[in-house]
């Protein structure tokens, strides 16, 4: 059922306030405490209005642990304590990279949001992945501060590698072209890099719109969000084969030199290759295995436009299944990471089979369709990876400059003529 997305800031909010959701009769309320998302809840809005009583009840029901913790930190003035002058490292400027392929409308909205970020010396880089038209170039031309570069072969991971190689700053934040970043997004990601052991930070991704049944189903069954509490992942608390809780590449920042040292993103994985996804999680896995930490920080908020049609959604679900098994195949074959066998069994035993059984029992056709598409992808994953790896190696032989092994850190200059503006 379509729903309005309502952002509700609780600090300074007038009590007993009516909320308009017209023309929607349902809303997803996202609660904020002093600019930070702390909870969400679905609320019925008969007549396109949430009454003051219903709003208060919904707020109270959604105000869980993370909300009260934010309130407590505010009461204790912990922000002031953190910001006291210390002899600590200064924040570093960052590169914002957007890898895109033929989505000019989405890209325009994404760049508009990125342009609204506070200016802290960041550069913005658009990587046009295998362009078929000049649409992306034209969009970038309307944003004078945005730099354009082109990755003519490979998939999303090849484009990510290109962004790392072209970036001028040592921390590179990635957002999808179909996402809209929050004003505090970049600052929140960057704040976590105070600790040199942190190689990657992921953020909270919430739906930009819930206008169709498919978008609603995506948010209910396979949301990007990983909760409203900050978490730190490392070898002590995380299996290298289970990267689901860590976050997603649609909203992440990485330390460029660490990713280079780990070999870069695998061009045989993720969008634009037969493996279809998994490139972000495979990199997370290598970072964790190398002893680094990954932080999930919900203060880094981004809004993602989910796929609008069922066909697209099924395709995405199948792609996720394919990507997970492609990633595991790589880990097993190339890194001899036998823990993937255990992880695959655990997912089947505790995730997929009970999920399918529940969907059948409740005759939930939407869940069933997504789970079956995902399962189909899982079966294809290993073969997709082998196919993808062969293609990536062929590409690498054809254009050795594009391979991970020969990547060199940061070109200080813009992309060469012919590749960019």
């Amino acid at each position, binding site marked *: 059922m379509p729903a309005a997305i309502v952002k509700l800031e609780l600090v300074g909010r007038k009590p007993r306030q009516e909320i308009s959701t017209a023309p929607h009769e349902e809303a997803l309320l996202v609660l904020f405490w002093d600019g930070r998302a702390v909870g969400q809840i679905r609320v019925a809005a008969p007549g396109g209005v949430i009454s003051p009583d219903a709003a*208060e009840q919904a707020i109270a029901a959604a105000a869980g642990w993370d909300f009260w*913790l934010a309130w407590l930190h505010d009461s*204790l003035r912990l922000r002031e304590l953190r910001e006291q002058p210390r*002899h600590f490292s200064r924040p570093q400027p960052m590169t914002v990279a957007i890898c895109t392929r033929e989505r000019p409308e989405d890209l325009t909205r994404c760049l508009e949001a990125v342009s609204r970020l506070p200016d802290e010396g960041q550069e913005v880089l658009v990587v046009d992945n295998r362009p078929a038209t000049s649409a992306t170039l034209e969009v970038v031309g309307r944003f004078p501060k945005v730099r354009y570069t082109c990755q003519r072969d490979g998939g999303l991971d090849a484009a990510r590698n290109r962004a790392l190689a072209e970036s001028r700053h040592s921390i590179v934040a990635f957002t999808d072209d179909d996402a809209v970043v929050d004003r505090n997004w970049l600052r929140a990601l960057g704040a976590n890099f105070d600790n040199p052991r942190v190689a990657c930070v992921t953020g909270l991704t919430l739906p930009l719109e819930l206008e169709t049944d498919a978008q609603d189903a995506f948010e209910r069954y396979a949301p990007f969000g990983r909760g409203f509490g900050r978490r730190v992942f490392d*070898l002590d608390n995380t299996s290298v084969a289970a990267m689901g809780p860590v976050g997603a590449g649609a909203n992440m920042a990485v330390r460029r030199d660490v990713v280079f040292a780990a070999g870069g993103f695998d061009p045989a994985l993720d969008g634009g290759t037969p493996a279809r996804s998994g490139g972000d999680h495979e990199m997370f896995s290598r970072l964790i295995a*190398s002893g680094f930490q990954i932080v999930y920080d919900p203060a880094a908020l981004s809004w993602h436009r989910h796929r609008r049609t069922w066909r697209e959604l099924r395709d995405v679900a199948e792609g996720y299944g394919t990507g997970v098994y492609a990633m595991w195949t790589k880990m097993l074959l190339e890194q001899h990471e036998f823990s993937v066998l255990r992880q695959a069994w655990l997912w089947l035993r505790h995730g997929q089979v009970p999920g399918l059984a529940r969907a059948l029992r409740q005759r939930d056709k939407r869940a069933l369709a997504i789970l079956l598409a995902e399962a189909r992808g899982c079966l294809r994953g290993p073969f997709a990876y082998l196919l993808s790896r062969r293609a990536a190696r062929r590409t690498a032989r054809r254009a050795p400059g594009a391979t991970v092994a020969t990547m060199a850190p940061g070109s200080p200059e813009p992309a060469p003529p012919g590749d960019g503006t």
Partner: protein
Amino acid sequence: MSAAAPQVSIVIPTRNRRDALARDLAALARQSYPANAFEVIVSSDATPDDSREMASGTEWPFRLVWTGLETPSGAAAARNLGASLARGALLVFLDDDVEPCPDLVEAHVEAVSDPLVVSIGYLPPEVNGRNDLFAITLRAWWESIFERMRVPGHRFGFCDVLAGNLAIPSSLFRKVGGFDSSLRCHEDYEIGVRLLEAGARFRFSETARAVHHEATTLGRALVRKREEGRADVQMARRHPGIVRSLPLGMDLWHPTAAALERRRRVFELRGGERRRMRRAMGRLRAYERIRMRGRWRALLDGLLFEEYWWGVSDEIPSLAALGNFIDECCRKAPGDNAFFDADVARGIETVLAEIEQERPSAARLRLGDWHVGDVPAVAGTVPIDRSHVQWLMGHHFAAPLLRALARSGTIGLEIHGPALESRPPVPSRPLGDGPVRTESL
């Protein structure tokens, strides 16, 4: 060379690390701090290599002083010898295997704002391309030391003092009597105890960075662990109170039966340890090959545990003698068990201000009749201040504090078992504004 006394004296103890020392000195030549305002004193621990020729054969922009011990006596003795020749008001101790960043001296000078401040510099570990499990673990261990110091409410203690990159006002260093040269390791922890007794305040200076080229191997780490066991006994003899904060005082912390049994075996089965060690090293390699990281880590921790207790047993030969030793330490330095009563019902700001004024060694936090948490007295740490309690309440004690506030009706939370659920209304007043309702349930 400047005839006037320099403001800073950098002391580098060295032994048989010519190339590392050359890298260290070259990095000091690139400091942002004026080269004529600091001197570098290299203190050789009877180094047998040609480090001296290397140092004296190069033109340095700073004044370089070479001194040395006749026989190997350890880094502590070398540091003391170097410090005795220092003319600067600030002593900066650097190890020979570190590479100072250009801002290091300037950052230490800025951090040491008065004669009682000790600046602990940052030593990011560089494992030089090694990617084996031991190197990964070693790097993570080093970083974890600095992670805890980055926390705004960190309560500094003697274990935070790392002589590899440390700045101490000369007057304070002389007042405490320098390093204890009888110790072959943990001499920095030991001076940390005396610095705290002298009223020093520790500060972590992240911008005073010196890259630590860490070449420790697994075998060396095990040997070092044994030395630490011995050193801890020697330290506890000198400062009985800190036995509570050392692994040595394990009995005082309610250890697990498995840990006690493992320690008993160390004391009883001292023969055949080398053979057992070789077998364990083989298992470590096998676990690493098949990526069994959990087993690998458990085995490594077990080996380090045993090495530590072998070191202790070198000094104290039996478990009975160990028990007597710990009892004796506790008798000589009874712990401070007086808790400062911090009732949050008086208002957060009021309680924090009282703690800042009182600076107690231990505090008990409560909300009316509801116990929130204890900040215990920890031997060899600074007294509790406002920021420690502020941070603890927002993190370690957040759950009990929120539960207590919910029970008192101050906030709209409903308790169902361990989980917290909410109910209206949203808080209507900030916690620190004054007295809150404190009725008991």
